[in-house]
């Protein structure tokens, strides 16, 4: 049993990650003690509906946060369509419509890096299946701050470019299948 010493979980994913996230949220314990911050790439022409679909299966409350909204434990936050999502030092979110990064808005690097600076070694970063390299630099920032880094096992990915890009920059702490990720998170508290 791992003692609880983390403050947040941050997850990035792209192609193929919707079903992985959906499944993970349906299997996480109801009393999950940390905020979960998720940044998923969306198809440009389908901007709405993602949060509704993720909500269907999640046991935890799923929110697309507004600018300056406070981050609360046990909630799931999904980066809203067409905004970058940042974690601020006062424990709130901020949104931005700056240029796309890695062709993406929201960009996983932005969310992960900002969370790394705020939560430092008390952050768990997870990168799932995806077809580009967004998220790799963010995971490096998490590793540099001594946070925990987990990538989805490329063998279980629909597209493995994203986790592999992370593995090229850093050696992740864990390489897990989606089930193993859920298992790891569910055992964060006894």
């Amino acid at each position: 049993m791992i003692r609880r010493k983390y403050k947040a979980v941050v997850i990035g994913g792209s192609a193929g990650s919707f079903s992985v996230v959906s499944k993970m949220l349906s299997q996480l314990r109801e009393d999950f003690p940390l905020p979960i911050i998720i940044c998923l790439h969306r198809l440009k022409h389908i901007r709405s509906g993602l949060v509704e679909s993720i909500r269907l299966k999640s046991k935890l409350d799923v929110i697309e946060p507004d600018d300056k909204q406070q981050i609360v434990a046990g909630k799931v936050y999904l980066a809203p369509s067409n905004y970058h999502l940042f974690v601020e030092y006062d424990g709130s979110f901020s949104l931005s419509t700056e240029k796309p990064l890695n062709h993406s808005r929201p960009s996983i690097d932005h969310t992960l890096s900002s969370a790394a600076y705020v939560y430092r070694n008390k952050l768990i970063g997870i990168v799932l299946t995806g077809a580009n390299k967004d998220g790799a630099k963010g995971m490096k920032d998490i590793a540099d701050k001594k946070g925990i880094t987990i990538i989805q096992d490329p063998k279980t990915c629909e597209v493995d470019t994203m986790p592999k890009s992370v593995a090229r920059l850093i050696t992740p702490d864990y390489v897990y299948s989606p089930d193993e990720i859920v298992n790891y998170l569910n055992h964060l508290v006894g």
Partner: protein
Amino acid sequence: MDFKHYLHVLKENTPYDFSNYSDNSIKRRLQKVIADNGLTADQLLEKTQCDKVFVEGLVEQITVNTTELFRDPELWPAYYDKLYPALKAKKSFNIWHAGCSTGMEVYSNMIILNELGLLDKARIYATDISNNMVRQCQKGSYRYAFNKQQLDNFAAVIKKAPINGVSRIDFAKYFDIDEQEDRLQVKDFLRKKVQVKRHDLVKEQMPFYNKFDVIFCRNVLIYFNAALQSKVYQVFHKQLFPKGMMILGNHESLTGFYKTKFSKNGAVYAKSNAFQFQYQ
């Protein structure tokens, strides 16, 4: 690089005050400026204090100028559910686009007003902190290929959700389209109707004497810290006519005191004095 110190120097030596922008965001923007221009922290400080042209360019690079034609297309029918009856009942009305960027939203809104038969009654004002954006807004010239998708998206939305009966817009009435030159040029009758002025929401007195029926300020205040946001909401509240309406970005919301001074109706915030606090 000490960002707080830098912002202080900028404030003391130039007309620009970014000291109440949200920390993370201004830090990230400044880091990008330093990297993009290949400057050291000292060079940046020096240029800021004595190079006016550099400072104008800097403001450009710090501020975010993202805008789209009919941005968030599905929200426009929702806005006009509230706006149309109120505007139709008036002899004339004033609309202010605060932080207008390149003007795409200004012209999008004017197109809808015209389709609804309301444009003649409208006085349209637009402001931005950047001189360059003011010029671009006045010019109303955009890239065609890049923006066509937005027009198509909006056309699809109003086909399904007409705005007071308007389910189709002939965009050729509003733009001269030159595919070869990749130009989408807003026609003069729209361009000449907008009063565009440079204005800094943070520092300056209002540039217009009149009050407003509608203020659009979408995805501008997200770069400010909470205290500065409140200050700007105070200005908006003061500048709106009773029952005047404010339109914010998709994921902006009022917090604290000003939450009680507007009533939220979907995506539209209406000025209300129903619940007044007395602060001494």
